[in-house]
């Protein structure tokens, strides 16, 4: 039972990882001068909203 659980969990994660990797162009090509974090997802939820708000306030000032 434990064996099945351990195998199922890690295999699911490996397959998700492979599918995610597959979708990304920077797997095979990368600009050595780029300063961007490849594949960094935009900030989610509350943090992004807060940042946007702060940004707006800064630009209003």
């Amino acid at each position: 039972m434990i064996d099945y659980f351990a195998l199922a969990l890690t295999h699911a994660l490996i397959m998700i990882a492979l599918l995610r990797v597959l979708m990304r162009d920077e797997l095979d090509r990368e600009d050595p001068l780029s300063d961007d974090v490849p594949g960094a997802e935009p900030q989610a939820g509350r943090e992004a909203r807060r940042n946007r708000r702060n940004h707006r306030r800064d630009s209003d000032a």
Partner: protein
Amino acid sequence: MLDAALFLTVMGMFALGLKRPFVWVLAYLYIDILAPQKIGWTLTPLLPISLIAFLLAFAGWAVADPKSESRFTLRQGILLALLVYCFMTLQWADFPENAQDKWDWVWKALVFAIFLPLTLFTRLRIEAAALVLVLTAGAIVISTGMKTALGGGGYDSLYFFVNDNSNIYESSTLATVAIALIPIILWSARHGTIFPPDWRVRTFAGLLIFACLLVPIGTEARTGLLCIAVLGVMMLRDVKNRIMYLLAAGALGVMALPFIPASYYERMATLGSVQSDQSASTRVQVWMWTLDYAAENPLGGGFDAYRANEFTYDLPVTRDEGGALVTEIKEVTDESRAYHSSFFEMLGEQGWPGLILWVSLHVLGLVQMESIRRKWRNRESPAEQWQGPLASALQFSNIIYLVGATFQGIAYQPVFLMLIGLQIALATYCRKRESAKAEAERKALREARRAAASAEPAMP
């Protein structure tokens, strides 16, 4: 059911490789660590999947990858020299048949370690390789950790997916691997982009690390305990809040106590008393024998040369006689005792040249990782934050491996050779990025000068 699932996973990986051939490299990492062909019983052993993945990985690189991105480095040269030297000692091996058996997997592990860095030329590839390595070994670690937690641990009584002591399905080796993976798990959880850090990733990483720490307890591998201690001390270097770290480490230790099987204390108690423990006392004898052997055969005796040894010594044996413990001195003869140390394994099998190559491979790695860690520590660009910590993690893993290797014959352990491959890939990646930057700066300077020169005549 399990057999079919594993078979489908492997076939799925092979199919995904048609779109991105790099997946075949990851498939080989997966197959070589987990050995699904040994877990399954009908479908997976049907095809030589390990060989197929090995060939596909090479073919994918040869056909699809830009060769201009690949560099052949000094450490790959050392690995190649070691491979050639192992082949030479195979020719004059003391035990040709046993040597051939070992050579059959050693050459593959060495060739793959030389090849792996050639394919890992982007950040995502390095990360994907580290992640697949962690998750695949994680399958074995999680099952071992859970069995330990639920009371199924114990030396010789713990069952893995595969029970033939091969590869990392050997309890002491698994314990060393599990502890060596902890720094890589931490790095993946902090700097990963495939699974970006969030509460789910942190929770999984935390539990996986806990499972890793339970492996030396469940397998009752004494070396594992030493590895935990070394890792604990080393991590003091990089943690921000040392007091919190010490408190957390203490709490984790207390949490682990209920999971420790009673036989563990008995086995660990023998750590201090070398005399009455057969495994430990023959170890010292084998090391002495190997030194003598190397004096006579400085070029090495080929794989499995230890089979020639034989020791007779007196050992105190305690037995229970009607409630009273009686200790007697008994003469014990041991034959063909394994090296129980990678340093002596290299010395006995590959002689001084092999030992020097092997030690320099690791020492150079430690130095190289340290230099990357220092150089990239204070970088500000968001794309330059992961290299230093990864160098640090790979360095820690390497040190843990060397601690484990001092007491186990794991000189050619494929998982650690893969970590060497990752180190080489990281060093090459960093060097490439630096030279590209320097080149860009030079170009910008040249252009600025040219612009200034062409602007001058226009000035009145």
